[in-house]
């Protein structure tokens, strides 16, 4: 299996502090991967690098069949290449309706000229409706997304990511602040999504990671500490020491 995303030898320094230290790892084309690690381990920074928000000091990041380098692309170009990102706190456009949020995310030409003359067709509207139903918001298309509950906003954001049809999805702490029922729904969504694309989930909650039932990468001080099944890594003494042993 060739890798969809290849990160190798990446380092980032913020004001002399090494947040990512010679980090290397690969994600396969249809893989679900969980990344865990203590606060400040560099999980969010890793996502920032892949999505073009932060430029690494050294190393390479390549993506796709033709292994294009992501380091020269802008955030928008990376997103268009097929990488979607979900943030730690839900970020939807609260001033706009669920429909508008999803329509904006729908995979369509993104240039200002194309967008100016774009008017949603019947199939577009149907696709948005289907997406909304998939994430449990079928009844809420006309509502302002600012009125949604915290969990619903998280799902809307996941729906927007689905609409983008990314080949790689980066999800930062999706379960934070969710009720138990919402967590279960979210787990199911993530597992379902990983059937057709690669999904990388950053999560603190061990129960949540266990339910995902996938390969786990442990980050610590900006580098990979251990990798394998959850049971495998939780038996690793150094993991126990830096992460699990804390509390």
């Amino acid at each position, binding site marked *: 299996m060739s890798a969809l995303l290849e990160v190798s030898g990446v380092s980032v320094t913020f004001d002399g502090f090494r947040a990512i230290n010679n980090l290397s790892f690969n994600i396969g084309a249809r893989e679900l991967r969980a990344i865990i690690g203590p606060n400040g381990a560099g999980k969010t920074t890793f996502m920032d690098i892949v*999505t073009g*928000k932060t430029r690494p000091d050294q190393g390479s990041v390549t993506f796709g069949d033709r292994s294009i380098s992501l380091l020269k692309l*802008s*955030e*928008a*170009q990376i*997103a*268009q290449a097929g990488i*979607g*990102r979900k*943030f730690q706190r839900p*970020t939807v*456009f*609260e*001033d*706009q*309706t669920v429909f*508008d949020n999803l*329509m*904006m*995310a729908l995979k369509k030409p*993104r*240039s*200002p000229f194309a*967008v*100016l003359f*774009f*008017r*949603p067709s019947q199939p577009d509207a149907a696709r948005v409706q289907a997406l909304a139903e998939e994430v449990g918001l079928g*009844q809420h298309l*006309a*509502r*302002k997304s*600012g*009125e*949604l*509950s*915290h969990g*619903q*906003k998280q799902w809307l954001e996941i729906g*927007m990511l689905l609409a*983008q049809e990314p080949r790689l999805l980066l999800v930062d702490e999706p379960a934070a602040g969710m009720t138990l029922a919402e967590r279960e729904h979210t787990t199911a969504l993530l597992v379902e999504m990983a059937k057709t694309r690669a999904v990388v989930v950053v999560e603190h909650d061990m129960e949540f990671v266990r339910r995902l039932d996938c390969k786990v990468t442990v980050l610590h001080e900006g580098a990979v500490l251990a990798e394998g099944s959850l049971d495998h890594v939780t038996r690793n003494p150094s993991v126990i020491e830096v992460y699990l042993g804390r509390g």
Partner: protein
Amino acid sequence: MRQGFLTRTPSVLIFLALLALFTLVVTLASHAYGTAFLSTSFVKTLGKTLCLCLVALAMDLVWGYAGILSLGHMAFFALGGYMIGMWLMYARTEDIVVQAQANAPLPATPQEISDGVASQIFGVVGGAELPAVWAFAHSLPLQLALVVLVPGLLALVFGWLAFRSRVTGVYLSILTQAMTLALALHLFQNDAGLRGNNGLSGLQNIPGLGQVSQDRLSVWFFWASAGALGLGYLLAAWIVSGKFGSVLRAIRDDEQRVRFLGYSVEGYKLYIFTLTAVIAAIAGALYYPQAGIINPAELAPIASIYLAVWVAIGGRGRLYGAVIGAAFVSLLSTWFTGGRAPDLSLGFATIQWVDWWQILLGLAFVLVTLFAPQGIGGLVDWAQGLRAPNRRGAPLGPDAGALQEREATE
């Protein structure tokens, strides 16, 4: 699709109907075409006000929708005025020169006419040569093209430099203000070739229409201004009603997130910045023939700040808000500063509005910003019994069954 657009946005139809009605009323009350109830100078004031409404519309697009607080749009407005003013002044002076030389034994050569025009226009600043920037001033079509091209290109280049390096927020505002100031200072110099602080004058006299009285011309310009405002409103409403408007508002609220959706935020900002600069320039090109004179003071940064104040007071992020704000505040300002407002006697002191109006305006701006961010336009929501959704606050409703907000008009 057009049909759908108008029915989906009823406020556009209401606006256009009101504008048409207003135009009709003013026409019927004018000297030239009606009861002469309105003085010609007041018709001009109303026509100018419509142009200010158009530039406010542009400001609302760029600030209210896209979140770019530009303090440079009145510079584009004035540049548009300068471009049309050059033709007006050249062509009219040419008429005068040709007439003056009509009695000469030999017909004047083109060179003599051109020299005559140059010394007429530039005598006041001690020059007799036509500067290079006047190269196209003899031609109305070329100068009309420049109305669009000069401000448009300036906005394009400036915007490209500023947005590309991701200057945002207050820094961008300062940068646009610096551009405005630099342009004003440049035009103040005689070397700039636009008559320095004298500016261009006599713009109310339209070449070739010397026989037409100002009474009539004022109404014609009023019609043109109303037409431009109507078209501008239609265009703006069409832009913001679709996905483009969605993306603009999204950029205003969280531009980083928009990037991760795959939209090139810089491209969109440049697009709307340049487009609105062109709209502002067209508004200016209609304004200054009605004002009769333009000078570099028109580009002072304060003018662009006023523009932002109008839009804020009217209610940004809704098109009719910008129009209401510009019309209301600029007419009120004309009234107060025109010395027509009666002095207010407080016993111990007398408030003379000419001096106090600015303070009143500043105070109104602060109060609106603090207590009524929706501006005058918010009254429309209030009248419809809507409560504005709080964009930054916590979720309004817990789960299913939360209050379903009726969509705001617009």
